[in-house]
């Protein structure tokens, strides 16, 4: 039988949420803090820890720069979201932020994840950002959008 995979894994999310009594929206914002002066500045920031299980559905960043790269790691499981190519002359520090976090100022500034992510209680996402080498971003905030699962 032909299996057709739908984006966004609706049944998969229903499977997780059935174990909880209710849920509330949650927006986990982390300040990145690019100084705007250092080319290719590397910064590591974490999402705030939540005292409940969460499912993350989407991301937003508050700047427009397709050359800012990001690598995401789930601290509790160690799962790294990105597979990165190595090169003798170019270090890729992550995937372009817009392919994960969307384009602010556009119709859909919050980009849905193809596969929602389960963030377990008290875990954090580790964001390893790298600023552009030429057109630098200053400051910056990243927001994970999801639901907090409650019993």
């Amino acid at each position, binding site marked *: 039988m032909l299996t057709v995979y739908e*984006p966004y894994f609706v049944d998969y999310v229903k499977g997780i949420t059935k174990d909880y009594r209710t849920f509330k929206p949650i927006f986990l914002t982390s300040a990145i803090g690019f100084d705007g002066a250092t080319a290719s500045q590397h910064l590591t920031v974490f999402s705030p820890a939540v005292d409940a299980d969460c499912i993350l559905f989407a991301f937003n960043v508050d700047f427009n720069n397709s050359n800012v790269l990001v690598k995401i790691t789930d601290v509790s*499981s160690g799962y790294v979201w990105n*597979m990165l*190519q190595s*090169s003798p002359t170019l270090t890729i520090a*992550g995937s372009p932020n*817009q392919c994960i976090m969307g*384009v602010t100022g556009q119709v859909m500034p919050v980009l849905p994840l*193809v*596969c929602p992510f389960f963030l377990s209680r008290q875990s954090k996402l580790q964001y390893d950002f790298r600023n552009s080498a030429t057109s630098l971003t200053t400051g910056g905030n990243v927001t994970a959008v999801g639901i907090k699962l409650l019993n």
Partner: protein
Amino acid sequence: MNIYLPYFDTLISGTPGGVLVANMRYIVYSHPIAERYILSGFNVNFNPASVTITLASKTDKHVWSPFFHTSLHAVAGRVGDVEPVLLLPRAQPIEPYTRIQIAIENQSGENINNCLFTLVGTREFAEEVLCTTLKDWMYKAA
């Protein structure tokens, strides 16, 4: 029983330094990973003016686009636009250790710098390889 996790495979397009030199054609391959993943779409971090692409799977010998006439816009969308990740018509399962051949040709007459091509999908892990935290999630979803 399986668990699904976000997966982003970012590749350097062009020279090892990420430059798509004018009128040149470059071939890159996706990472062959041990798990099956479900490919949902593509992203590029540059505006592909007159850049064309062809794709093929090196495992099931299927050519996704036969010639270099396919605009990169049609496959990977436009950077900075409404859909930074252009979804495929249907998500496509990619079997373990598959390499997808991606050939990109810059017909614009100008070099394009810092070119990254990203496959966006969902990685499918079996129970045996999971740590405790992810197993816990998997049991919840079952």
